[in-house]
C-alpha cells in the first residue's frame, strides 16, 4: 500500500508537546494525558496550557501528579480517524509512561491492522520530530517499511540532550532513572542528561547554576555527534526558560549552520511535572 498524507494519519500523545499539530496538519492528532493538582484534574494542553501550569506549580502546596490517557481516549481518536487507511500512533517511551499500553489496548479493541504503534523511546520533541519526519515521507508517498525504517533510525541516528534546574522533579515522579547516580548534586552544578533505552541517563555534570557551561557542553556533544552534511533537523523544548532558547538556537546554528530548526516548544504540564521549571533541551536527527 502506498501511504500518503491523504490516507495515513499520525496520532501522538500530548507528551510530544505538539499542541497545534492538528491545526497545522489535518492528518495529525494529539491525545492528551492528564495532570492533577490534588482533586482537580486537567487534560494536558486542552484544559491547562503550559504557562498557566507553571504559574500554578509555583504556588501549589503539593506536587502535581500525571496519568496516562485511558484506552477509551485513544479508541475515540482512532475511530474519529476511521476515514484513514493507516494510523501511526507515536508514543512516549514505555519506560517512562504507561501511555503506550493504553494505546495498545485501544488498537486491539479497534481490531484490524490499521493502527501501527511506535514506542519512540523518547519524549517531547523526540516524538513530534518523528511525526514531522513521517509526514515528509508521506508527502512524497511511502510504505510501512520505510516508516518503520525511519522510526528505527530515529532511535539510532538522533540525539537528545537536556538539563534540569534540579533533579527533584525527576526524582519525585520516579522518572530519575540512572540519573539517580548523581545523588546529592548541589546547587552549583547542572546535570547533562539524555534518554537512552527509554530512560533518563546522566552524561556528565557541569559547574554552575547558570546555563553557560551546560550550553557549552551541549555544543561540544552536538558537534561531536553530527556532521556538516544536510538533513540535520533539530527541535528545542523548554520549561519557562525562554532566555536559554535564544541562546540554544544560536548555538545550534553556529555549530551546524545547515541545521533546520523545525520546532521550538514549551514542555507541557505533563512533561513539566517530571522535568520541572528551568528545563531546556533539544533533539536532533540527521537523515
Amino acid at each position, binding site marked *: 500500500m502506498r501511504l500518503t498524507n491523504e490516507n495515513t494519519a499520525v496520532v501522538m500523545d500530548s507528551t510530544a508537546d505538539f499542541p497545534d499539530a492538528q491545526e497545522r496538519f489535518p492528518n495529525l492528532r494529539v491525545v492528551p494525558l492528564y495532570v492533577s493538582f490534588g482533586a482537580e484534574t486537567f487534560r494536558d494542553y486542552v484544559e491547562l496550557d503550559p504557562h498557566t501550569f507553571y504559574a500554578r506549580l509555583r504556588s501549589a502546596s503539593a506536587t502535581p501528579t500525571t496519568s496516562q490517557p485511558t484506552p477509551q481516549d485513544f479508541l475515540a481518536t482512532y475511530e474519529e480517524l476511521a476515514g484513514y487507511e493507516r494510523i501511526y500512533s507515536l508514543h512516549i517511551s514505555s519506560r517512562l509512561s504507561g501511555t503506550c499500553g493504553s494505546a495498545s489496548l485501544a488498537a486491539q479493541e479497534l481490531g484490524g491492522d490499521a493502527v501501527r504503534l511506535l514506542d519512540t523511546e523518547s519524549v517531547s520533541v523526540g516524538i513530534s520530530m518523528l511525526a514531522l519526519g513521517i509526514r515528509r515521507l508521506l508527502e512524497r508517498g511511502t510504505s510501512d517499511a520505510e516508516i518503520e525504517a525511519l522510526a528505527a533510525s530515529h532511535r539510532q541516528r538522533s540525539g537528545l540532550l537536556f538539563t534540569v534546574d534540579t533533579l527533584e522533579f525527576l526524582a519525585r515522579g520516579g522518572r530519575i532513572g540512572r540519573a539517580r547516580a548523581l545523588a546529592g548534586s548541589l546547587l552549583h*552544578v547542572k546535570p547533562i542528561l539524555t534518554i537512552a533505552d527509554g530512560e533518563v541517563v546522566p552524561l556528565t555534570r557541569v559547574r554552575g547554576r547558570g546555563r553557560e557551561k551546560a550550553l557549552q557542553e551541549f555544543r561540544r556533544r552536538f558537534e561531536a555527534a553530527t556532521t556538516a552534511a544536510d538533513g540535520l533537523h533539530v527541535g528545542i523544548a523548554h520549561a519557562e526558560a525562554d532566555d536559554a532558547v535564544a541562546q540554544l538556537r544560536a548555538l545550534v546554528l553556529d555549530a551546524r549552520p545547515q541545521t533546520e530548526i523545525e520546532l521550538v516548544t514549551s514542555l507541557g504540564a505533563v512533561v513539566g511535572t517530571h522535568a520541572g521549571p528551568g528545563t531546556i533541551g533539544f533533539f536532533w536527527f540527521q537523515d
Partner: protein
Amino acid sequence: MGSPMPVTELARARELARGSLATLEANRRRIDDLNVYPVPDGDTGTNLTLTARAIVESLEASTAADRAAVAKELTRAALMGARGNSGVIFSQILRGAGEVLGEPGAIDATRIRRAFRGASDAAYRAVRRPVEGTMLSVIRELAEEAENPRHAALSPLELFRALVGRGEIALARTPEQLAVLREAGVVDAGGAGLLEIVRGISAALAGERPPDAPAEAAHEAGIDAIHQELSPFRYCTVFVVEGDELDAEALEEQLERLGDSLLVVGDSSALKIHVHTDEPGAALALATALGTIEGVEIANMHTQTEQRSERLLEARAPDLGLILETGVVAIVPGAGNRRLFESYGATRVIEGGQTMNPSTEDILGAIEATPATEVLVLPNNSNVILSAEQAAKLATKPVRVIPSRSVQAGLAAIVRYLPSLSAAENEAAMAEALAQVATGEVTIASRDVELDGVAVRKGSYLGLADGEAVASSPDFDEVAFAVVERLLGNGREVLTILTGADEPELARILDRLEQSHPQVELDVQPGGQPHYPLLLAAE
C-alpha cells in the same frame, strides 16, 4: 617463617578498633541521614567515624606495653578525638568500659559483662537529662543482655554475637521510645552507630572482614526525615579545656545558659565540651578563664542540615549494595570539603592534604574498600600524587590517578564524575575539567621571602594564582581580591570559594565582587581546611 607472633594486648585492641571503624565507615552516610535527634544536623555517622578514627590512629601510634596502659590511652584518645554529641557519649562509654578492661586478669564473659555495665553507667552519668530511645538506651540494653545469666559461660565472640542481636532489637525499639524518631520514620542515629561499633568488634573477634553496608538499607531515612525542625542554635561547638582541678558542674551550669545539647565530660585535668549555641565565642571565653583550650571545632549546623536535606531529596535511594563501574577515592582536608566531595559522589574520602599527607597504605586501603570495578584517585595535593601512584601499583584492581594538585582543582574534576561511566571516560572528563580550571589560594606566609617578584613578610597574607604569588599584605581583603581578579580573566563564569577552618570574613570581598563581576556566579562553601583561609577555583 617461624611461629606466629604472640598477639599483644595492643595489637588486639588495634584490631578491634579497626573493626569498629570499618563498620562505621561503611555506614557513616546512612547514619548521617538518620540523624534527627537531638538536632537534625546530619553528622552523627561522621562524628562517630571521626571519633573512632582518632582512637584507631592513637592506637596505631601507641607503644603501650600492657593492658592497663592500652585502656588508659584508649580512654584519652576517645576523649580528645570525640566529635559531636554522639562522639562524646561514645567516649564515655569507652571510658566506663576501659576502667574495667584495664584491670589485670583474663577477659572473659564475666569481665565483658562488667565492662558493658561500666560503659552504660558512665554514659548515663555524662548526660544531664538522659533520654530513652537514644544511644543511652541502646548501651543500657546491651549491658542488660550481657548480664543475662545464660551468657555466663559464653566465649567473648559468642557473647558479642548475642549482643549484636540484642542491639538490633534495642535499636529497632528507639522509634517507640522517642516521638521525634517516630515522626521522622527513622531509628536513632547514635544508637545505630553504637550497634555498628559492636558489630565491628564482633566481626574483628571472629577474624571476619568487616561487613559491607546493608544492600537494602533497612533504616534508610525517609523523606519525612527532611522536615525535622532545625536546631534553634546555629553553631555546634566542641573543645577541650585542660587545667588544674576543673569543676565540670560549675562550667556546665554556666554553659547551659548559652545553648542546648550540652555535654561536659572528662576529669578534673581535662574536660571535653559539646554545646549547640549562637555564641561559640562566649562558650570559649568561659573555658579560657579556667585553663587552656584546644581542639576547638565550630560547625554551622544550619549548613549541615541544608546539605543533608539536599542529599535526602536528591538521593532517596542510594544503591548501597551496588558495585559501581568507577569509584573515586579523594584525599581532602577539612570536614566541609569532605562533605562536598561526598556530595559529588566520592566513594571514599581520606582526610589529608598539605601538612598531613596520607600514607600509601591509607590510600591503598581506601582503594580496596571501594566497591567499584575500577577506581580513580584524586590526590588533591602535589605531595600526595606520588603515594597515590604507589598505591595504584599495589592495588588489586585497576586504578588511575588523576593528577589534581589542589582541593579546589579536585573539586572541579569530581563534578564531572559519573559512577556509571568507565574509568577511562571519567578520566577524560576530569582531565578536561582540570585543564580548564584556574586555581588560587590565600594563605599566611611562614617566613620572609621574595616570591615571583612579590615581597612576602612572615605572618602576612599571601595570595597565589595557579601556583604563582600575586599579592602579599597584612590586609586580607586586598590579597583575596588580587587573587580573584587574576583568576577571573579569560571569560570564566563560576568562582568557587572554599573557606578555611578559621572562617574568614568575606562580606566585603563578596560585595566588591558583585560590583566588579556581576555576571560571575559565586559558590562559597565552608571547606574547613587548615592553613588556607581561602581556596579558590574559577571555571
